[in-house]
């Protein structure tokens, strides 16, 4: 069999080329993270070695033990609590609203949807100022509640949008069948629509959780007590004071702070992606 050059290229070079490109690109993209983890387990002295060491010659977990203290636990606890509450509230409120928008011919529906979506573009500082004044009047400043409210507010538009797009795709006949069988709307929503919307619910909850976890500025502005600091707030403040040159410590803290979401993410990733894609691609 004659193998021309073109055939060789096509059958061998291209597939392997693609494989290699994908591998290298991925590696390149995740390199900052690898560097982060790698630094966190290095010896202090090895951090500045040249050529830069990607895989440490010696691995030590000293820095982890060094930085673990009440402060770290405190900020983790606050962030988890706020993120969980915000995720639950934003997802459920969003889902109920999305159901109403999906199934009922509400006048001005498309305007409402557009408004929801565009509220994401509204400048956050603008939002924060008025919220600051409002919370001040309500006496909610310097509480975890203010954070939960703030995080719910900025994520609600997306959860509504995601869930509505998803629910739009669930055949109405299933709900009609249940209605004919005598089910109330409460039953229909919680026992039929919600179970069938699991991907979108997961995606929403995860999205809110991650957004809340990341959120820095509500925390900086609304909270003053050191005990109530969230992860980003705590890190940004201690970064300036405590960790000026302690790079291994800083990276260890970084890794610790990433782990909670990382774990949840790994388990829910499939569902999350499905929900997010169904929500956005169809929209």
């Amino acid at each position, binding site marked *: 069999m004659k193998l021309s050059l073109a055939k060789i290229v096509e059958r061998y070079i291209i597939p392997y080329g693609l494989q290699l490109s994908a591998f290298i690109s991925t590696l390149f993209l995740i390199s900052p993270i690898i560097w982060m983890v790698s630094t966190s387990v290095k010896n202090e002295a090895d951090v500045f070695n040249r050529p830069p060491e990607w895989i440490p010659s010696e691995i030590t977990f000293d820095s982890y033990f060094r930085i673990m203290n009440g402060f770290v636990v405190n900020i983790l606890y606050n962030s988890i609590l706020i993120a969980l509450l915000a995720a639950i509230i934003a997802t459920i409120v969003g889902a109920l609203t999305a159901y109403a928008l999906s199934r009922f011919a509400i006048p001005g529906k498309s305007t409402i949807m557009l408004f929801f979506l565009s509220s994401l573009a509204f400048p956050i500082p603008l939002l924060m100022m008025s919220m600051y004044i409002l919370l001040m009047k309500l006496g909610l400043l310097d509480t975890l509640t203010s954070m939960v409210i703030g995080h719910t507010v900025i994520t609600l538009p997306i959860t509504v949008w995601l869930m509505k797009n998803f629910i739009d795709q669930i*055949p109405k*006949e*299933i709900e*009609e*069948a*249940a*209605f*004919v*069988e*005598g*089910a109330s709307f409460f*039953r229909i929503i919680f026992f*039929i629509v919600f*179970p*069938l919307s699991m991907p979108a619910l997961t995606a929403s909850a995860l999205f809110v959780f991650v957004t809340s976890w990341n959120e820095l500025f509500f925390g900086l502005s609304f909270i003053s007590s050191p005990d109530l600091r969230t992860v980003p707030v705590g890190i940004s403040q201690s970064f300036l004071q405590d960790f000026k040159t302690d790079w291994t410590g800083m990276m260890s803290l970084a890794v610790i702070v990433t782990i909670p979401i990382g774990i949840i993410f790994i388990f829910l990733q499939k569902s999350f992606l499905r929900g997010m894609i169904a929500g956005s691609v169809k929209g």
Partner: protein
Amino acid sequence: MSYLELNNISKSFDKVEVLKNINLNIEKHEFCVLVGPSGCGKSTLLRIIAGLEYPSIGHLNLNNNNVTDLKPRDRNIAMVFQNYALYPHLTVRNNMEFGLKLDKVPKEKINDLVNEAAQILKLEPYMKRYPKQLSGGQRQRVAMGRAIVRDPSLFLFDEPLSNLDAKLRTKMRTEIKSLHFRLKSTTVYVTHDQIEAMTMADKIVVMNEGEIIQVGTPLELFDNPKNLFVASFLGSPEINLLEGNVQSHNGKTSLLVNENVMIPLPNKIKLTEGKKIIIGIRPQSLKISKLKTDFMARVSILETTGTSTFVFSDVGDKVLCAETNRDLDLKVGDIISLKTDPEEIFLFDPETSERIKN
């Protein structure tokens, strides 16, 4: 009083009138089929009977009760949807139990009813499966099972067989009908397929553009269609239609279609000379004559079903269909003579499309 009475029902969606003054009576134990082309309003009417929509005007009585404003659950009806609408996240058994649990029926009774329905519909091997693991026909039976366990006053079917392949459809038709007999139920069945209507119904309601055109038994509608629409809608293959002018000769009237074709018309119907009319001849009534007639045609297509042959032939610019026995020796291109019994011809007024009877 009839079991189900629909009085002056009209329904509009946003200024579009979908149902216009529907009046209909359905008796107990009747199998009533609403049939018509897409968009005629039959599904909307069914949904109004179910309580999924409310009429803009009019009311309905079920079993002597005015149910117009009642929710579906209070009407004690069961419905089988076109896409079955099974609960995807529940097993077959749970699907069938759903309604009973809502009615707070005691657990033992639920089991009895569900098992009985499963037996009737031969669903026993599938009770623990999920809808997505079932075939179309099986899903359909689960949908029916869900309906029959509740022992409803009325069964409603919304084009349940549309998603099945042809062979399964024929089989399920008989199953649905025999179920109807076995349970002594009253059924309203919606379909666009006139064969389903003809084979299953005790009473057919032909609808078009939001109105009821004609109501009657299958044979009544077949033998005595009120207008062109009903005559064309029922019957497969479709009825043959020809247009022409009335001619009188020696006391006999015929239809002059063109210079080559003249067809004898029934005598007892009085027609004015020269009047333009439309005639309808069913394929079963159109015969191929061994003798030469004034009704000549050229064979264009031959379709054999195995039991009979449909001969399609050209008359002028129209194509006519004649059903014959399968052993006729014909080829495409042959010139044939057609004949038909004048008494079996339907006459229609070209302007009103109404049937001319006297």
